[in-house]
């Protein structure tokens, strides 16, 4: 295997899971014959047939209901909700049913399932096809929350998510689908809840995930080259379970923390992480935590508007450079 795109990593990792375990099934809208609207599931129907790869009607509640019921009795279904924005029409299944059933049943029911969904902005699709909603699922007890930032992580995290005995919401970033990476070996796993250091530095730390992790990495490289600022970039990869130890280690090291979040400002995942840092590591902070987020607005559509709404590499560079100049 040489160059692999993020979208190829999705189909490759699903295929590997399906080859290993015939309890793994896959369903969603346009996922089979069409190969997915983002072409992230090309070839699965051809390899595994319509019994295991099922095209569904546009019925998100029916998709997730079938997913949950099948998982209850031992299948390991992977469902696709085409755009994460559509989670709103089946949120009852996610938040009330899938998340709570194990707890309410006193452990009688296990739900080994994965809900994959296309997340995030960058495609100029407007406010109902561009949201970053990982913080929604982070707020509901009983859901594991994964958001990979590169093709390798897609493979490692998907493999772990499918093998996991609990429900996982898997946020794939739409703007990362074309991202290419050299992947030699595709048989590996990345444990859920293990953050990745994308860049190492001593002056400050950026905490991020998904597309924002890639932009933070670009920013870190420029900050080093042009501003002589060395920054650690933590790619959380998972919000639940959260790798709190990696975060605390970086707080201790530099004491200067930024979060870069694609979600709108209020109750973004960085708010919770900031609160934990303040509660547990206040003495180690040299300066207040700065959260770089999308403003508290829906995502607009035009190029110039969308580009200036979600955090850009330039905004990250500028914010860090200005802040660190003053310290």
């Amino acid at each position, binding site marked *: 295997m040489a160059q692999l795109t993020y979208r190829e990593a999705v189909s490759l990792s699903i295929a590997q899971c399906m080859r290993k375990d015939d309890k793994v099934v896959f369903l969603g809208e346009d996922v089979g014959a069409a190969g997915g609207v983002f072409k992230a599931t090309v070839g699965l129907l051809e390899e595994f047939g319509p019994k295991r790869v099922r095209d569904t009607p546009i019925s998100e509640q*029916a998709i997730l209901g079938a997913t949950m019921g099948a998982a209850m*009795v031992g299948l390991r279904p992977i469902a696709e909700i085409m755009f994460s924005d559509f989670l709103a029409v089946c949120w009852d*299944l996610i938040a009330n049913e899938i998340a709570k059933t194990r707890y*309410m049943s006193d452990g009688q029911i296990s739900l080994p399932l994965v809900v994959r969904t296309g997340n995030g902005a960058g495609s100029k699709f407007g406010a109902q096809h561009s949201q970053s909603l990982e913080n929604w699922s982070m707020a509901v007890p009983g859901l594991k929350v994964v958001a990979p930032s590169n093709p390798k992580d897609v493979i490692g995290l998907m493999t772990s998510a499918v093998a996991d*005995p609990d429900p996982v919401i898997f946020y794939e970033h739409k703007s990362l689908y074309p991202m290419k990476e050299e992947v030699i070996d595709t048989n590996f796993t990345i444990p859920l809840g293990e953050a990745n250091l994308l860049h190492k530095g001593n002056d400050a730390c950026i905490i991020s995930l998904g597309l924002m992790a890639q932009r933070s990495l670009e920013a870190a490289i420029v900050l080093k080259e042009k501003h002589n600022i060395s920054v650690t970039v933590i790619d959380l990869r998972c919000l639940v379970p959260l790798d709190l130890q990696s975060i605390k280690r970086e707080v201790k090291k530099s004491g200067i923390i930024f979060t870069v979040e694609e979600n709108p400002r209020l109750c973004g995942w960085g708010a919770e992480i900031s609160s934990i840092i303040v509660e547990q590591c206040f003495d180690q902070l040299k300066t207040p935590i700065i959260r770089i987020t999308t403003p508290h607005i829906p995502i607009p559509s035009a190029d110039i508007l969308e580009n200036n709404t979600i955090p850009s590499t330039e905004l990250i560079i500028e914010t860090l450079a200005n802040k660190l100049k003053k310290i």
Partner: protein
Amino acid sequence: MVELNDDIGEKKRIELWTMLLKLRLVEKKAYDLFLQNLVKGTSHLALGQEAIGSAFGVALEKKDFTFCTYRGHAHTLSRGASMEGVLGELMGRECGLMRGKGGSMHLTDVKNGVMGSYAIVGAHIPIANGTAWASQYNNTGAVTTCFFGDGTTNIGAFHEALNMAKIWKLPVVFICENNFYMEYTPIRQVTSVENPAADRASAYNMEKIIVDGNDADEMYRIAKITIDKARRGDGPSLIEAITYRHSGHSRADPAKYRPKEESEEWIKNRDPIKIYRKRLIEFGIKESKILSIENSIKDQVEKATAICKKSPDPKIDLIHTDLWSNGGSEWHN
């Protein structure tokens, strides 16, 4: 003399009578325990609707699956859940089916095929498709049954699920218990068709089935037909069973919105227990046998109640257990 159709036979009729009484007497006990303030929270009784759950309980096989609503005590018992498991859960005791973690509206007893009781109207209909899909996938021959009320037919999940069940030809039987009221409002007042479930069946290329939900024999016959059809691989059915609640929607509801003559007629003349007692006598079953079953169930209910009253509160550590499959609720390292 009227010729009697004895297609059901004495053995099954005794099973049906036993089941009817079990469901009736446990529900009545649940109500008594409310009045004694031993059951907290809300509760939705199936008094008057027992023939539906009873018939399916008798007709189903051990390997089959059942999905209930928040009005699910009766359906849960009908699959073999213990009385103390059900009453104990209502009372929030250690002996409850879920040791108090679910409560009245979420009764679950997986070992008896009860895959949960769902308190969000309609949510469980698509989920029932899932167990049916797994049975089809693994070719186990298990059938899924899914019970719900008339009000559920106006929520989107009902329509999404029926369509998917049909196109995937799933082994599932959907049973709408039409008791004429969606909570407090007459269903006719808020529904575009006369029969809220049966009149929608054609939209999903399913047969229109309306049955007297207070006649346990009629219910048993349709249960057999639809379960057999699903087990053969001939796909889903949608049944509308006509019935009536003897009490209000929930414990807080005295049901004053229903005309007195209407509820009196149903309770006096169309009560499934009264109907079936008469039926048994018509078929020559001795009064003494009928009574001895009744006394035996009464005794079982009293014994279960005593167990529940003696059962301790659940241990407080239970709060943090079983969010995840590892038994705990940790969200960070």
